[in-house]
């Protein structure tokens, strides 16, 4: 089929109402993107013969590739659109999710936790729990992770299809099937290797497509000072451009949150839980070629994470400054026909991007969605094959059998994701429930893994019961607020707290409960012999020294630089 025919095929599925109209060159750019990611998948198939190749990318990745893919897997889903929308709604406060809500945790993963993950040679986070605590903790973690990952993947597909419908007028079924099958093909062919290659490519495209909006936007607004002056003039009653100085009280900021919620809930529990134990991101770092690369990869990821607000938060703020229309919430947008917060990024694209650049911008959005989905699907395939199928169903098969299972499981994961996408289409409220479900496991899991790595007295029984107690308490708190919204005042410690604060404080309490139960049960149950903890726990693991390396080659040196820049940025935008 020639390019004209392919372009016509895209045009045929377009519908009349849309924010953006593509030109021929834009369609060529989008089609080239699809051709390239599929081509990479076909090319890499020949290099994925063993289980280690397929599930761990052969453990040959450099620090740069592992680090960029670590970040790209998180940049997916609704990250780009969602946080640009949050920046329009809440102002610069949304940056906390990129700085205090990510940087310390990523550095902690690299410097403190990575040696244990890497030296233990585990293939997954549930796999580490098996080595440290035994089969029960692994099974609980693996099953919940597999179910939640595939559900989240479905939500992401649906969200992407919805965006493509609103922005380009594309048929929703067309978007769901084309994007899912593309991801399914390249991950099934080349496994994690293919997912990682494409994630690095997608990372570059996201930057090239996204960086021009803030550059042109700042020119239009008259620089940073011009932008803040315009925002202050248009929204005199709101504080949109200060990071910390409105967090002294729940009432003083548009997010309805207190600094304790940001520092302890987001900055400590939720962020550390996600960045250090969510296998979706940790899997990328486990593919590093040696321990130094594995320690450096999250630090490289953290360096770029600090810059992501430039392409995500700044467009939202610029939207506040320059867009002629005031954007509103989704419900109000549906009722009035106005544009919603979620459309701020496409509106900025349409404002500044002419032919060619528009195709690049849309490709960047698609790349973001697909890298996130590939992350979900490849992590699901690994956990299903190694931590559920091999652990509980078929223990002694050939390596080639597990590779084959991984390929089929990738296709199954994609089909289940598509099924979830259609389920969400019918019952939109499922989206809120599933996102809450996912959050139930992250904070307690961090408590379980952290104690497992740093405290050799933590026992196998305590690991399981602590994780279960933390998870159930999180579900309990969520259900309490669902049944009686006044409960939010108790969980978030203030009657003025808003929904965003709930997640932070719920994470904090469930983590404390997990840690408390783990410590208590540990003192009543039998610990593992120290000889079985070698390579898994601090104090009994021989971590290779880096003393012989020059300073610039030591991961800790780069982590120090990143943390200094992190503090400077927070002070500058205080």
């Amino acid at each position: 089929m020639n390019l004209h025919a392919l372009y016509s095929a895209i045009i045929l599925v377009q519908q009349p109402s849309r924010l953006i109209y593509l030109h021929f060159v834009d369609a060529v750019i989008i089609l080239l993107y699809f051709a390239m990611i599929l081509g990479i998948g076909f090319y890499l198939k020949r290099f994925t013969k063993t289980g280690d190749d397929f599930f761990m990318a052969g453990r040959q990745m450099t620090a740069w590739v592992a680090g960029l893919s670590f970040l790209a897997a998180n940049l997916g889903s609704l990250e780009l659109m969602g946080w640009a929308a949050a920046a329009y709604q809440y102002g610069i406060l949304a940056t906390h999710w990129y700085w205090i809500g990510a940087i310390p945790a990523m550095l902690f993963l690299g410097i403190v936790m990575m040696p244990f993950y890497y030296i233990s040679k585990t293939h997954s986070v549930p796999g580490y729990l098996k080595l440290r605590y035994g089969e029960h903790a692994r099974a609980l973690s693996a099953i919940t992770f597999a179910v939640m990952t595939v559900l989240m993947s479905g939500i992401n597909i649906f969200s992407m299809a919805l965006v493509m419908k609103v922005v380009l007028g594309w048929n929703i079924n067309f978007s769901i099937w084309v994007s899912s099958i593309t991801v399914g093909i390249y991950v099934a062919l080349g496994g994690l290797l293919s997912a990682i290659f494409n994630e690095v490519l997608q990372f570059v495209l996201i930057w090239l497509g996204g960086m021009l909006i803030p550059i042109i936007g700042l020119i239009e607004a008259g620089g940073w000072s011009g932008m803040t002056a315009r925002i202050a003039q248009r929204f005199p009653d709101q504080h949109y451009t200060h990071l910390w100085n409105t967090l002294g009280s729940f009432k003083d900021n548009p997010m309805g949150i207190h600094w304790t919620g940001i520092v302890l809930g987001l900055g400590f529990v939720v962020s550390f839980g996600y960045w250090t134990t969510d296998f979706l991101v940790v899997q990328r770092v486990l593919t590093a070629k040696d321990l130094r690369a594995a320690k450096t990869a999250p630090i490289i990821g953290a360096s770029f994470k600090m810059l992501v607000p430039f392409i995500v938060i700044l467009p939202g703020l610029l939207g506040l400054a320059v867009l002629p229309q005031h954007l509103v919430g989704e419900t109000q947008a549906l009722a009035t026909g106005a544009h919603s917060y979620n459309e701020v990024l496409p509106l900025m694209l349409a404002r500044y991007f002419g032919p060619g650049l528009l195709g690049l911008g849309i490709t960047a959005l698609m790349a973001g969605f697909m890298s996130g989905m590939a992350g979900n699907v490849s992590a699901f395939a690994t956990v299903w094959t190694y931590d559920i199928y091999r652990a509980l169903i078929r223990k002694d098969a050939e390596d080639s059998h597990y590779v084959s299972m991984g390929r089929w499981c990738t296709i199954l994961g994609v089909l289940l994701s598509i099924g979830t996408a259609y389920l969400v289409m019918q019952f939109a409220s499922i989206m809120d429930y599933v996102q809450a479900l996912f959050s139930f496991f992250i904070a307690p899991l961090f408590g379980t893994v952290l104690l497992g790595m740093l405290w050799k007295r933590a026992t196998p029984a305590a690991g399981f019961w602590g994780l279960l107690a933390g998870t159930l308490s999180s579900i309990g708190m969520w259900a309490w607020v669902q049944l009686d919204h006044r409960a939010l005042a108790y969980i978030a410690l203030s009657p003025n707290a808003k929904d965003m604060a709930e997640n932070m404080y719920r994470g904090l309490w469930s983590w404390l409960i997990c840690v408390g139960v783990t410590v208590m049960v540990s003192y009543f149950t039998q610990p593992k012999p120290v000889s079985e903890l070698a390579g898994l726990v601090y104090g009994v693991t021989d971590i290779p020294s880096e003393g012989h390396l020059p300073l610039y080659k030591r991961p800790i040196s780069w982590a120090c630089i990143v943390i200094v820049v992190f503090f400077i940025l927070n002070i500058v935008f205080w």
Partner: protein
Amino acid sequence: MNPESGRISIWFFIGALVLVYGVLVLGAGIYELFSPSPTTVVLSELHAGIWWGALMIVLGAIPFFKSFPRAKE
């Protein structure tokens, strides 16, 4: 080419795509310069497509040629 794995480097693929995209964006920008479309974007006088496309060509050409797969000597 990665000497250990025998694979073409990821940077070659990235360079190739960015290079081609740069040519397309630059070409579209030049076309717009001489034949502007009726619906113009804000700050179209900056001709962002031209300089952004040129930048992409440079950024794509470096990894493309540096990682170009060569036959083993």
